[in-house]
């Protein structure tokens, strides 16, 4: 099927001459990702979301009928579901769904070597340091540029073990049997308004399958890059780790700073079979105009372990509550999250732990930092039903306020029934005191350096759990943010 002619014509890409857009209200230094290239898109679904948009995406991707149907149904669910502003921020109402472009790509087939990747896109990822990291410490990389992966490669030694790592677009074609079995099973379309939106227009994201007993020693990494203005990125990631296998997956994300809002709404589903282990690490550094509304959940079978490490530095509004459904006996779930809300930002993050078997254990550690008028919100769900035995949860959430007008909110929802469980919840709010800053200044540190050090100290015990490369990156990002926050 050929895409409709009027949509196949690429619109004139908007040229951004000055990569450092003036936006004093935000005042955030995100220079690392703040650049853009004038890319010619061969495929553009245009602005607005209708059934035609979905047909266009399905046509371009030459999808099977079942996916097409899945998408159209999801669109209906998205349209029917109200915005969740009865509990979430009203800022959601400022998303202009009609102005967003839902699919932008140069092609559907990612390149296997960086040499084949078109120059502008290659340069984007080079500036972000991706090829270099790949050489140094990664088992495989997928680099998504707007709607599709531009590059995807997995080291031969890993591929030989039967590990599949590719873009979701490709995986749907090449491994439909595994894909279809788990797709939408951990996070159903109707889970929430944005999981429905993603289900309607999803494109890109990673697909990983690790065969039984295979322990992937180096991390697999995906990088998500938004390059276009008025664009929505809707990747769909599905990771299945078979019995006794292990994998670490890391994702990074950036976008240039545009004057209009951009939307990122991903769905990530993890499946850890019996005794499998998955560690999923995110360092989100979207530009301060990006709505980042993501649904992430893992299903842990007997004796399996799923750990989410989630760092949210950028974006205008992030709503993300990684969860684990502890389905099998003795399964373990963990969420470790760090959020930094600068002026004009709202990090609404947390975790969900759904205990559904005996002897399951979950841990939530959340640290948030609010700077200036930034707002950090923690929402946590812990659910332990009556018929279970021997379940444990430990929740700890700490908030650090930098300025007197900074804001933090905590909404824990812990439901424990039955009497053979152990649940612990601790929360603290602290402030960087004038005495602490003066003390550090007295030792020769500037005010900004002192702030940075205080913030790094606050998150230090969490960051130590991260892979080296990521903890260095996080420290650098915190330094940049704090530099901008002090007169």
């Amino acid at each position: 099927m050929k895409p409709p002619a009027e949509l196949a014509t690429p619109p004139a890409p908007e040229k951004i001459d000055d990569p450092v857009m003036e936006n004093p209200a935000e005042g955030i230094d995100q220079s690392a990702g703040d650049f853009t290239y004038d890319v010619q898109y061969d495929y553009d679904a245009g602005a607005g979301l209708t059934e035609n948009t979905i047909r266009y995406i399905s046509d371009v991707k030459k999808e099977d009928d079942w996916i097409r149907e899945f998408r159209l149904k999801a669109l209906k669910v998205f349209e029917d579901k109200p915005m969740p502003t009865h509990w979430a921020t009203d800022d959601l109402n400022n998303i202009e769904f009609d102005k967003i472009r839902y699919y932008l790509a140069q092609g559907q087939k990612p390149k296997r070597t960086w040499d084949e990747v078109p120059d502008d896109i290659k340069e984007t990822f080079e500036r972000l340091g991706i090829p270099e990291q790949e050489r140094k410490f990664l088992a495989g990389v997928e680099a998504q540029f707007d709607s599709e992966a531009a590059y995807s490669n997995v080291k031969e030694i890993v591929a030989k073990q039967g590990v599949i790592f590719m873009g979701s677009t490709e995986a749907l074609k090449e491994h439909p049997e595994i894909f279809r079995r788990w797709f939408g099973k951990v996070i159903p379309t109707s889970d929430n308004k944005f999981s429905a939106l993603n289900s309607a227009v999803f494109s890109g994201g990673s697909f990983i399958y690790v065969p039984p007993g295979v322990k992937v020693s180096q991390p697999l990494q995906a990088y998500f890059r938004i390059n276009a203005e008025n664009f929505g990125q809707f990747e769909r990631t599905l990771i299945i780790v078979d019995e006794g296998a292990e994998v670490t997956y890391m994702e990074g994300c950036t976008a240039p700073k545009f004057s209009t809002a951009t939307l990122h709404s991903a769905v990530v589903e993890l499946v850890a079979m019996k005794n499998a282990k998955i560690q999923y690490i995110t360092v989100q550094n979207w530009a301060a105009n990006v709505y980042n509304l993501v649904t992430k959940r893992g299903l842990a079978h007997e004796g399996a372990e799923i750990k989410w490490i989630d760092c949210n530095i950028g974006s205008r509004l992030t709503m993300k509550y990684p969860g684990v459904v502890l389905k099998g006996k003795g399964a373990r779930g963990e969420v470790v999250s760090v959020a930094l809300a600068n002026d004009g930002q709202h990090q609404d993050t947390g975790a969900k732990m759904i205990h559904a078997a005996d002897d399951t254990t979950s841990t939530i550690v959340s640290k948030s930092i609010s700077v200036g008028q930034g707002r950090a919100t923690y929402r946590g769900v812990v659910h332990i039903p009556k018929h279970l035995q021997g379940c444990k949860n430990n929740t700890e959430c700490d908030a650090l306020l930098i300025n007197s007008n900074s804001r933090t909110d905590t909404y824990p929802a812990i439901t424990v029934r039955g009497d053979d469980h152990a649940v612990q919840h601790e929360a603290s709010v602290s402030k960087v005191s004038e005495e602490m800053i003066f003390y550090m200044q007295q030792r020769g540190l500037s005010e900004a350096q002192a702030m940075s050090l205080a913030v790094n100290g606050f998150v230090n015990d969490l960051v130590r759990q991260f892979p080296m490369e990521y903890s260095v990156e996080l420290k650098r990002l915190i330094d940049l943010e704090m530099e901008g926050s002090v007169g």
Partner: protein
Amino acid sequence: MRRNPDFRTTSSLHTNASLLLFTMKSLEIRNLTIALADSLEEPIVKGLNLTINTGEVHAIMGPNGTGKSTLSKAIAGHPDYEITEGDVLIDGESILEMEPDERARAGIFLAFQYPAEIPGVSIANFLRAAEQARLDEGENVDAAAYYKRLYEKMDDLKIDRKFTARAVNEGFSGGEKKRCEILQMAMLEPTFALMDETDSGLDIDALKVVADGVNRLRGENLGVMLITHYQRLLNYIQPDYVHVMYDGRIVKSGDKNLAIELEEKGYDWVKNELAAPATA
């Protein structure tokens, strides 16, 4: 490089001291009046004069609430205090326009009476950041050399090396906090150390350790202002000069014997002496 070399070389050239005292530096407190920033009408320190040269230890004694701590904090640039009159100069140049961190890099070190806790930041990382802050942009602390020096200083001060991994002052006992201050002083090698009630809250053993540390750091490149309420500390650190502070001023100065006299007669002796001429 451990401290700001520019400051040392340029300022020492400006001193009008004799050739013999070429490297001597001075901290001059001139007619200093200090008030809390929110009550400028009621100064705490009222026109205080004092000059401390490197190589000298000046003890400042006095009853509680007489302005001793205020003096040291204001010199270091604490934002709660405002200097409404007078000046503080290092080798003739005023430091009052400098930020607290600039004053620190210019050689002022304040050993706090109540050091702040910095959760999650290890002593090793903190001191390294403080040394890094003294370097020019683009220069980096040499990690190996830094740790070598740090461990040497710790051995000198008889501090367990495991100490460096602990977060600065977090959960420290009173003695550990003071020892941590002395270690920082040893590493940062200031020109002038303002030691605010370094002996408060210490038992006799801790007091000896701290005094021993100060005595090791004493020397011709360091000037010390030793603030204390009790004479006890001065048994272990012999001051060159003793000043008695009362009601925001230095009312009596002398050598170490003054401290002993003070110990015998108590602060009332000074008070009465002051009151006498007024009632006469």
